[in-house]
């Protein structure tokens, strides 16, 4: 490459889509307490070394930040990484620069969902959707329903394998056959509706 920067990486050539993604990502970062420390990352890799699941990620947590700096947002969002993170916060507590790695990955999850950019053969979004639907409806989460809905959408043939565990839990009173509801579902959905409107409001900023 004789030291030349390929045109796709120069400032003028940042993809329009990546630009938009960066803007909404930075907006999210502002809402994370301590989020601004992202700037201080020294690429030491302590996050990756501390992560119990980095060995199975396609892009490591350290690389996520490097790619963000290279403005490769789409590559980040299409990775398995942000969805494999189990949010154990090992990276966050060990980062010598105070980078809020776990919360940044949460922000990226939200971004990916908002813009519908997912890795191939991707199960977690389905789980998240099932969860949201259930919670909205009943005000409480319903584990068996959640898992059932999830398997049905992603790997229905494996449901049979879950039956023995289901029966064991049932016999011990650890599964209820019907979801529990909060009393005031009407007012609950009223709150949710308002929150959805609030979600869309972006505070004005000085430019």
């Amino acid at each position: 490459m004789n030291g030349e920067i390929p045109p796709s990486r120069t400032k003028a050539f940042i993809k329009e889509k990546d630009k938009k993604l960066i803007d909404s990502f930075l907006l999210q970062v502002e809402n994370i307490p301590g989020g601004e420390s992202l700037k201080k990352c020294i690429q030491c890799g302590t996050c990756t070394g501390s992560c119990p699941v980095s060995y199975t990620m396609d892009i490591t947590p350290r690389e996520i930040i490097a790619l963000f700096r290279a403005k490769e947002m789409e590559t980040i969002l299409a990775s398995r990484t942000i969805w494999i993170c189990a949010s154990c916060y090992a990276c966050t507590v060990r980062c010598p620069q105070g980078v809020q790695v776990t919360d940044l990955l949460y922000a990226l999850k939200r971004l990916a969902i908002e813009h519908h950019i997912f890795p191939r053969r991707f199960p977690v979004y389905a789980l998240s959707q099932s969860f949201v639907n259930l919670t909205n409806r009943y005000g409480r989460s319903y584990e068996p329903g959640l898992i059932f809905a999830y398997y049905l959408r992603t790997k229905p043939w494996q449901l049979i394998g879950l039956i023995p565990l289901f029966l064991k839990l049932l016999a011990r009173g650890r599964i209820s056959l019907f979801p529990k509801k909060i009393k005031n579902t009407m007012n609950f959905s009223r709150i949710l509706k308002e929150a959805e409107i609030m979600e869309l409001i972006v505070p004005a900023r000085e430019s």
Partner: protein
Amino acid sequence: MDYVYYPGCSLETSGKAYDESVRFVFQQLGHNLIEIDDWNCCGATYYMATKETISLVISARNLALAEQIGQDLIAPCSSCYTILYKTNKILQSNPILKAKVDQSLRRDNLEYHLSLRIRHPLEVLVNDIGLNTIREKRVVSLEGRRIAPYYGCQIVRPDRGIDNKEDPQMMDELLRTLGAEVVPFPAKVRCCGGMLMTTYPDVALELNLEILACAARAQAEVIVTTCPLCQINLEAYQNKINKKFNTRFHLPVLYFTQILGLALGGTPRQVGLHRQIIPFHFKAINQEEAR
């Protein structure tokens, strides 16, 4: 003292024994748990991952309801504890998000005034009630029981400031107070994978294998935990792990409140031992006899 109590969805179903034993322990120690009337799901990890404002509002509804009852909110589930704690912190520091949340809650005539402290029962037991009181009220000795204290991720991380993040000691001390032998357990804050057991089971099974192997190497006879998700991952999937990795684990996994409840004189049923998939056999030896 009175505490506001937020059981959370898991403690109504798969983690019922946790709910039963927390209530028993606090009652036995002479403290009141007042359950929030009509609480809703805390929003949990996945809600937090999808819509920011909505997840905060859902979580804050509980805080607003709790505030009407008291100042200290106890949430036993590590995930609920993390979410409620985080929501509280964000609302305290971000006026814009606070305004959005207020506006939404007003739809149900609710308001949150930021006065709550979000707390985990382990920390309340050790810091408020105190190990001395617990030692005095202990009626059954756990002498000679080899226990691996498993804290999981979210009770000390990321920033609770209640214990050491890499090598927490609260549960160790509590168990020692009960007379138990706490085994060296370097996996005490390793991640169990949480919901990965459903989404990426291969990854989660391996994580749990490591935790079980660590406990078995230290010759623990039981693992004691603070989180319903850790409990179910470690207990209910042991069979699967044994099959997949050709191991022969048979380790009961209890909530720390179950063990504490037994030491405070609870019957196995009172602390929900009948709900274990891998049974924990406990014959109460009276403290006096033990000597």
